[in-house]
């Protein structure tokens, strides 16, 4: 059954028992994304903290928290859950690297050879890349995280100026 290549056990686990679900305070960025073809939704909140106390939010900033609320299929739910595991505690630079790797993996048409050191549990999504219509599902939370992060940085800049 080809299905198993998409619905890896890790994915089904995260789907059934999502991590970090539910919107949390404090946060300094939030984004809401909708998949227009199926109506699935996710809201992602992030809290970035400067690497050095009182410093600017640069590449080395810490992703202190990521929380989310969402509604959608197993892939989009699991992806959001895995995302929080990966990102919380990482630096912004590492997070962006994961985003890039994950995006590349999703567009690899099943040919990707993901770096397990970077993507950890998220390598389980490799099979999704064979199903073009589901790629958006896997990316939904990641795109929302990207926007929420941009907002954090924006907010900080405004605060600073």
């Amino acid at each position, binding site marked *: 059954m*080809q299905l198993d290549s*998409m*619905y890896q056990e890790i994915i089904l686990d995260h789907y059934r028992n999502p991590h970090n679900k539910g919107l949390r305070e404090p946060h300094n960025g939030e984004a809401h994304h909708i998949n227009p*073809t199926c109506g699935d939704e996710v809201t992602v909140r992030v809290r970035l903290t400067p690497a050095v106390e009182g410093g600017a939010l640069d590449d080395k900033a810490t992703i202190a928290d990521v929380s989310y609320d969402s509604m*959608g*299929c197993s*892939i989009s739910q699991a992806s959001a859950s895995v995302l929080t595991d990966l990102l919380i505690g990482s630096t912004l630079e590492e997070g962006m690297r994961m985003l890039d790797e994950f995006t590349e993996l999703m567009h690899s048409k099943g040919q990707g050879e993901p770096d397990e050191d970077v993507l950890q549990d998220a390598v389980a999504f490799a099979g999704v890349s064979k199903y073009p219509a589901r790629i958006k599902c896997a990316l939904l939370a990641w795109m929302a995280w990207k926007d929420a992060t941009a907002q954090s940085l924006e907010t900080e800049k405004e605060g600073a100026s």
Partner: protein
Amino acid sequence: MTTSELGRLDVEAVRADFPILARTVRDGRPLVYLDSGATSQKPRQVLDAERDFYERHNAAVHRGAHQLAEEATDAYESARATISAFVGAQPGEVVFTKNATEAINLVAYAMSNAATSGEAYARFVVGPGDEIVVTEMEHHANLVPWQQLCQRTGATLRWFPVTSDGRLDLSGIDELINDNTKLVALTHQSNVLGTVNPVTAIAERAHAHGALVLVDAAQSVPHMPVDVTELGVDFLAFSGHKMLGPNGIGVLWGRPELLAAMPPFISGGSMIGVVYMDHTTWADPPQRFEAGVPMAPQAVGLAAACDYLSAVGMENVLAHEQALTQYALKQVGDLPGVRIVGPTDPVDRGGAISFTVEDIHPHDVGQVLDDVGVEVRVGHHCAWPLHRCYETVATTRATFYLYNTFAEVDALAEGIQATQRFFGTAAAR
């Protein structure tokens, strides 16, 4: 087969005309195509007709005096005659567009263009205080263009709600359709619920208040006999690709006196009377609404589709689909954990079966079905507001056509059970 041999409806003979139905998907699974509501498959006869046009008669229609141009024009206008007759209309009342969506937009834009087109087109002007009425079960194609018309003109959009069992709620009709109503736009058959709406009765009410009635027939003309003279409406829109015809062609039928009083939408070559640098006059309908080199090969293909359907007999197509629907309502509807969104009785109901499976997202249902070769659609099916009425964002939808079989309905039901087993939901235990 020769389509004329069909008698009632010999599904196997029909299937043999559709090359794609012989293919397999995923790991060699036979294709079970239950997504004709999105687009239908095409019989060889349609593809042959289109190709024959290209290989033997291709030229720009209505623009040349040479033999090829004559033949192409003749093929195009003969196609118009065939397609018109298929819905009981006269050729002069049928405008070719690229799809049903453009056909609906054509009327919506003609109405806003009327404001700047002079006295001759005053009858189509709408503005503040005027009301356009739609329904909550519309496809985006018959909702968004009217929202946009209202935004352009200041008119107000109003709508019929739906009932919990998937019918139009007509209880407020006396208030909803009133002397301010300029146009009522509604679907003949819902692409999600399957519901067939009482179009004629609503049209009577609308006409009593001087309102026009546009019917979105994208899901009815392919599946049942439709006669515009009996329907009692003013405009009717449908798409070729949903009725065995090519992509890239749609139809707007309009009452001739209305088409004649409507300003153009898309402008350019072949829709003009006389052109000066500073002003232009219009050709008569239908040419007025067909700017540019048209999709003649697609018209020829769509005419071949009409011929094919007529040979099978639209009554037979309808009866076949009703039988499939009735069977599916039972086979699918009775599964534990499955909820049909739409009427569960087969009366006034076409072959679109949308459903939810408890604790499994439609995307996941569709994925497992796809894995066993059953091709259905998942999502909001371009009817997002309707899905909100049923407190769900998305459903899984199976739609039937003349080439579908009872065995395919069984495959669907088995696939749903496989999904439940795969995800280990309560219903599977």
